């Protein structure tokens, strides 16, 4: 009984504090949870004389603030959740529509088949998987060094004046619609390649050049951010050791920004894998196995765009199968590169350890 009294007097004390801050709360204070009640009891036992009047009144958190905070938190959560839900739904949808190919074509035949013929009803995905890999790989080989060197120039070498021209140019390049880049490819690069290596000019080499132009701004901008985030003190330390500018860049700044640059390349690769329009316009679109830098090939994305409109039945299922493979490949590529970069880091450390000991 005495405990109850104590609780009540504590509550009374609280009430006194609360009155002008939030009178509507009075009703709530009489229904505390079990844990709260226990806490109140022990607190009451510890601090015996609860009659002590506080010398000041502390403003209590108002109900509207609480509601606002909770609403904002749930808004952010919903946005984040929508992104996750979107990815999950897309994967589920593609997988659902592609699934019938297991019975209609056979998974193994689809994945290892080298012939794609709508007329004959044979659907082998190898030409497109290979085509996509060739196109993406080549464009990275050209685009990544180009982009990283540009980023190094912008971050370490160029004067602010030069940067005031280069930076907007790179950003503009990022904003050029892919169909326009594709036009540039058809009108300028195709004849050039045709003159250089023969053939019609439609093929992997042309796609590499066009794609590397497209992924370059992404990689450049992100790499430059990574380089700029390296503290000036590290560069100064290197200069103060008697290192030249190039030694400082190659041996200190780039290793320090390595992870950021790899991330930039991964994002560029993501763009290259998904790029459809520009590739479609220059790659030749022949469902053939890769046979040289000037022989027309086709990629998964361009094949889907070309045929989805008029496809039906098994043909359509096969195209969804390509979409499923595309999703899986892009996902696994990103994961692979991440793992590789992490492994290399570990390996390097181990070598050093063994050497010194």
């Amino acid at each position, binding site marked *: 009984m005495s405990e109850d009294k104590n609780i009540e007097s504590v509550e009374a004390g609280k009430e006194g504090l609360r009155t002008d801050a939030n009178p509507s709360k009075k009703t709530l204070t009489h229904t505390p949870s079990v844990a709260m009640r226990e806490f109140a009891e022990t607190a009451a036992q510890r601090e015996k004389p609860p009659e002590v009047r506080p010398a000041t009144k502390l403003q209590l958190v108002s109900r509207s603030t609480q509601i606002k905070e909770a609403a904002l938190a749930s808004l952010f959560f919903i946005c984040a959740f929508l992104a996750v839900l979107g990815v999950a739904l897309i994967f589920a949808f593609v997988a659902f529509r592609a699934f019938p190919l297991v019975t209609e074509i056979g998974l193994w035949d689809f994945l290892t088949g080298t012939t794609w013929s709508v007329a004959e009803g044979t659907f082998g995905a190898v030409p497109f998987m290979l085509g996509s890999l060739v196109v993406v790989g080549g464009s990275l080989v050209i685009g990544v060094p180009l982009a990283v060197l540009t980023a190094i120039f912008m971050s370490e070498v160029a004067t602010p004046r030069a940067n005031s021209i280069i930076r907007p140019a790179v950003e503009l390049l990022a904003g050029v619609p892919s169909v326009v880049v594709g036009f540039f490819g058809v009108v300028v690069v195709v004849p050039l390649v045709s003159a250089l290596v023969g053939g019609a000019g439609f093929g992997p080499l042309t796609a590499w050049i066009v794609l590397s132009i497209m992924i370059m701004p992404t990689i450049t901008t992100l790499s430059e951010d990574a380089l700029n985030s390296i*503290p000036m*003190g590290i560069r*100064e*330390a290197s*200069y*103060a*050791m008697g290192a030249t500018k190039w030694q400082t860049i190659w041996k200190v700044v780039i290793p320090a920004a390595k992870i950021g640059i790899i991330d930039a390349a991964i994002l560029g690769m993501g763009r290259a894998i998904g790029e459809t329009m520009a590739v479609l316009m220059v790659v030749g679109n022949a469902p053939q196995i890769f046979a040289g830098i000037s022989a027309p090939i086709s990629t998964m994305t361009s094949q889907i765009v070309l045929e989805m409109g008029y496809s039906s039945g098994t043909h359509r299922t096969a195209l969804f199968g390509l979409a499923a493979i595309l999703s899986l490949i892009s996902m696994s590529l990103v994961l692979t590169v991440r793992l590789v970069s992490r492994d290399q880091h570990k390996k390097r*450390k181990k070598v050093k*350890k063994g050497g010194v000991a």
Partner: protein
Amino acid sequence: MSAHETKYSTVLQTDPLTTSYYVRNLEFWYGDFNALTNISLDVMPSAVTAFIGPSGCGKSTFLRCMNRMNDLIPDTQVGGKMLLKGADIYGSGVDPVDLRRRVGMIFQQPNPFPQSIYDNVAYGPRLQGVKKKRDLDDIVEDSLKRANLWKEVKDILDKNGLAISGGQQQRLCIARVLAVQPEVLLMDEPCSAIDPTSVQKIEDLMAEIKDEVTIIIVTHNMQQAARVSDYTSFFLQEVAGEPAVLVESGKTSDIFTAPIDKRTEDYITGRFG
């Protein structure tokens, strides 16, 4: 400000070869702003010289003139004479890169490279073409020992230089500089951002290496200047926007016990700054 005259408790040398640094009438500009004017002083070899003065008095700027780090800041200009063992470091065609190898620098914020402790110390020797593992191992061990850090890191040489404490990082930076055998070591407030134990160790190592390496230290800590230095120079910028000057220079014992200039006395006794 041309009326200003520096007071010297020790006579300025006439032969540049008796000094480590021989500075006469040095001027320094950031763009249009004349940051330092008419600085003349000697830095004696195999000794510790302390530069003291309130914040913004140009002592760090002056220090950065001594290994031409200010070259990295665009639109700066130097006038007057600054000789290292008689050779003009601002002479035409002088390679600032080689100068900086001979005149090492420690900064206020420890700035190890985000690489292993071993690689940090081996950085300088590697730049100079030392490739043999055994030679590098020796240099790394020797440098870390001279920097009073070896005992703490000898089993974690593969650990990232940023993973150790701030004070250890600063000693790592000292080891990194010592690994290239500099003749002069410039220290720009090396102890203002680190723990007392490390400060003690750094002051110890300064005393240990000063016979081989001329040390110049910028510090805000009067006690530290009095403890570690043999010579002291007091810089002051009296009016904001006006160039800073060298007020007084001489033996540390003289400056701290019998300063000639009233302003030196005021600063040392803590009346301003």
